[in-house]
C-alpha cells in the first residue's frame, strides 16, 4: 500500500450544491466548464466549497498519490444518455458531441475532480441503488484504512431524470462533497473537525423484507451495523430515515418504530424522539445531504442516517458531530482502539470559510 493505514478520520469540509438556481459560471468559473454535464458541474462545485471550508492545504499537505476520491451516483448519466440515444436513433452517432461523448461512461462525472485536484491515489464511482453516496464514504474510508491514500474527497451527485422516465417525479439534482482527513492532521494545520462519519452497508433481500419477519430481519441488520460502528446502546441516538414505500423501505421503517417492534426497535437502544422520516428520491443524494446536515447539529449528539432501496441495498451512517469527539464513528473496534486521542480543535479554526476561495491544486483551466 501507499502508506500506513489511516484511522481516526474527521470531516473538515462540507460542500453542498442545489441544482435550483445553480450557475456554473458563478460556482466554478466562466471558462472550462460549459460543456461538462450538469452532475459533473455540481460535484466539482460541491468539492470546491468543501475544500474552501477545509482550508487551502487540506489536500496539499500530502502528495497526489495520497489523495483519493469517491463519488456515488445513480442517475447522473440518465438524462444525458437519453439525449444521446435520441441523436443516435434519429440522425446517427456522427451528430453526437465529441466533447460530451466520453460521458456515456458514468465514472467520467467524477473524473474531472481528479484532474483538477491531482488525486492520484484512487477515484471511485459507486452506483448501488440509493446507498451509493454513503458507500462512497464507506468504501473511500476503507481504502484509507487499507493504506491506499491519506486524504479523501467523497460524496454524491445526481441529475434529474428525463421526463417520462419511471421515477422522474422523484428526481434528485445537486451534489454534496465532504473532505476527510486524519484528526491529527487537521489539528496540526489548525482546521476544525466538524465531526466523524462511519458507514456500514448491508442487504435486506426484498423477499425477506416482504415476509412476516421483515421488520425483525431489518432490525437485526441495523443492530449489527450500529454495533460495528461502535455505537454504545445506552447513548441517545437521533435517527433520520430516508426511505421509500417498498417492502424493503417499510421493513426498515418498522425496524425503527418502537411500537411496531414492541419496544425492541434497534435492540432497545435509546432514540432521541421519533425517527425523522424523509421520502427517498430516485438517487443516492438525499442520504448524503442528511449526513451533511447532521454534521452541523449541536456537538455531542450522535445521529444515524438510515437509508434503503427497494432493490434491497441498505446503509446506516453514524455521525458524531463537533470537534470534541469521544466516540469515534465508523471505524471498526480494532481500528478505533488504535486511533489517537481526539483533542479539541484549536480555537480560531475557521469552519465557515467562504466558498469563493481559489480552487486548490488546479492544474488546468479549460476543457481538453
Amino acid at each position, binding site marked *: 500500500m501507499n502508506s500506513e493505514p489511516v484511522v481516526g478520520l474527521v470531516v473538515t469540509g462540507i460542500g453542498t450544491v442545489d441544482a435550483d438556481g445553480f450557475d456554473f459560471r458563478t460556482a466554478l468559473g466562466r471558462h472550462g466548464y460549459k460543456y461538462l454535464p450538469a452532475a459533473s458541474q455540481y460535484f466539482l462545485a460541491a468539492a470546491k466549497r468543501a475544500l474552501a471550508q477545509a482550508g487551502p492545504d487540506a489536500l496539499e499537505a500530502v502528495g497526489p498519490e495520497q489523495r483519493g476520491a469517491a463519488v456515488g451516483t445513480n442517475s447522473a448519466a440518465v438524462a444525458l444518455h437519453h439525449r*444521446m440515444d435520441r441523436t443516435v436513433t434519429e440522425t446517427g452517432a456522427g451528430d453526437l458531441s465529441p466533447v460530451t461523448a466520453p460521458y456515456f461512461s458514468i465514472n467520467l462525472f467524477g473524473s474531472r475532480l481528479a484532474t483538477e485536484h491531482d488525486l492520484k491515489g484512487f*477515484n471511485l464511482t459507486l452506483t448501488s441503488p440509493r446507498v451509493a453516496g454513503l458507500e462512497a464514504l464507506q468504501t473511500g474510508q476503507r481504502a484509507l484504512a487499507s493504506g491506499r491514500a491519506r486524504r479523501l474527497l467523497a460524496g454524491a451527485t445526481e441529475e434529474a431524470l428525463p421526463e417520462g422516465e419511471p421515477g422522474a417525479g422523484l428526481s434528485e439534482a445537486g451534489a454534496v462533497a465532504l473532505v476527510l482527513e486524519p484528526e491529527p492532521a487537521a489539528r496540526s494545520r489548525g482546521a476544525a473537525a466538524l465531526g466523524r462519519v462511519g458507514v456500514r452497508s448491508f442487504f435486506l*433481500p426484498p423477499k425477506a423484507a416482504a415476509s412476516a419477519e421483515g421488520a425483525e430481519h431489518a432490525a437485526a441488520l441495523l443492530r449489527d451495523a450500529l454495533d460495528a460502528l461502535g455505537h454504545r446502546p445506552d447513548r441517545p441516538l437521533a435517527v433520520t430515515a430516508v426511505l421509500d414505500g417498498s417492502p424493503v423501505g417499510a421493513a426498515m421503517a418498522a425496524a425503527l418504530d418502537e411500537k411496531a417492534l414492541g419496544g425492541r426497535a434497534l435492540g432497545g437502544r435509546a432514540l432521541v424522539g421519533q425517527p425523522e422520516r424523509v421520502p427517498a428520491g430516485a438517487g443516492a443524494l438525499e442520504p448524503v445531504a442528511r449526513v451533511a446536515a447532521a454534521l452541523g447539529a449541536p456537538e455531542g449528539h450522535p445521529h444515524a442516517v438510515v437509508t434503503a432501496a427497494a432493490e434491497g441495498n441498505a446503509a446506516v451512517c453514524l455521525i458524531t458531530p463537533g470537534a470534541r469527539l469521544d466516540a469515534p464513528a465508523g471505524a471498526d473496534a480494532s481500528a478505533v482502539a488504535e486511533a489517537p486521542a481526539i483533542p479539541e480543535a484549536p480555537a480560531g479554526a475557521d469552519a465557515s470559510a467562504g466558498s469563493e476561495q481559489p480552487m486548490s491544486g488546479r492544474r488546468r483551466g479549460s476543457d481538453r
Partner: protein
Amino acid sequence: MDDVLVTGLGALSPLGAGVDAFWRGMHKADTAPTRVPDPLARMDHPLMYLVPEADVPDGPEEQDGLPLGRGSRFALAAAREAVADAGLTVVPGPGERPEAGGPDPRRVAVALSSGMGDTDLHEGWWTGEAPASGRWAPPFPLASVVGGWFGAQGVNTCVSNACAASGYALSVGADLIRSGEADVVIAGGAEAYSRVALACFNRLGAIDPERCRPFAVERRGTVFGEGAAVLVLESAAHARARGVRTVYGRLAGTGWSCDAYHATAPEPSGEQIERAMREALREAGAEAESGGESGSGGLGFVIPHGTGTALNDVVESRVLDALTPGTPLYSVKALIGHTGGAAGAFAALAAGLVLHHRTLPPNVPVGEPDPECAVPLPSGSAPMTGAYGLVNAYAFGGNNISLVFGEAAA
C-alpha cells in the same frame, strides 16, 4: 492476514455459456465480431463480440418487481454457475428450512460491477417499449439482483469505474474479506450491448472496423464485447472449514492508482499504471529487485489491459517491458473483445483458469506485432511455469488497477 481464495468461477461470454466453454474457446482461439442486431444502431461500425443468441438467458424479465436488463440477466447466469461451482447453496427464503453448514448470509457480500448496467432496458423505453410499471429502475442493480437471488445480507456494491470496474469489484471484495467484513464475496462484472456506449465509442473514432487487435501494428481501436464473469472469493479459513472442492488460486495482491491526467487518454509516461503494477506485485510477494520475476516461482504470465487503441497499448507495453521483461502476455480482448466493466473480471477468470490448469492458451492471431509494443504474445499453447499471474485493467478517467493472482497453496 487470511488469504483470499478463488473457490468458484462462472461465465457467460461470446464463447458461450459456462466456464468450460470459455476455457475451450481460449484454446480454439478463433473468434470474430458481428454486427449488432439493432436496426437503430446508426453508427459507422456497429460491431461487437456478442453472447451467442442461443446462450442469452431468456429470463427472468423481472425480480421482486424490478425489471431486468440484459446486464442483470448476464450477471445472474454467471453468478449461478460460480456459486454452484463453489459448492455454496442459496440462502433459504422466508419459511424455507435452512441447510446445515451453509454460510452465514450476513457475511456473504456481493461486489459486481458494470460500466453501463441495465442501460439497454432504458434505451428500449426511449424507443417505444413501455415500462412495465412506474417504479424507478436504477441503472446499476446488478449486484442487488444477485444479492436478492442468493439471499446475501452483507455489503452489496456496484463499483462503476468504467473499464476497470470489475477489477475494482474484485479488489473491494478482497478488502471486505481482509477487513473481516465478509467471509464470502460473489465478485465480478457484467456488461451488455448498449447503443449509447457503442455510438459514443464510434463518435470518438475508437472502434476498429475489423476486430480487436491489441498490440498489432494495424490496430485501429477496440471492439466491444459483452458477457459476465463472476468469481467466488473466500477467506482461506472459511474455505478450509467447509472443505471446498477446488481452489483456483489466490487474489494475492492489488494496486490502485489514478492518472489524474485526461478524461479519455492514458498518461503517456505510464507512471501511475506502473505504480499500480508494482504495488500489486509487492503485496503478492511476486516482485523482484528489477521488477516482476519471471519463471518458476515468479510471474508466469500477464493478462494486459491492451484494448487495441493506439496509445494505451504502447504505454502499457513500455511499462511491462521494463517491469516484467520477457513475461508472456495472454490477451483476453483479442478473444472476446473489450467487455468494458466486465473486462477485469474476465481477465481474472482467465488468470484463475491458467493457474488452475497450469497452461497458457494460444493468443488469437491479430496480425503483425507493433514494434513499439515490445511484449511477447505467444501464438502457441505452453505450460505455465510461474506461480503468479498479473492482471491489468484501466479506464476512462485514468482509473487503473492491477491484480496479482497466485497459484493455490499445495
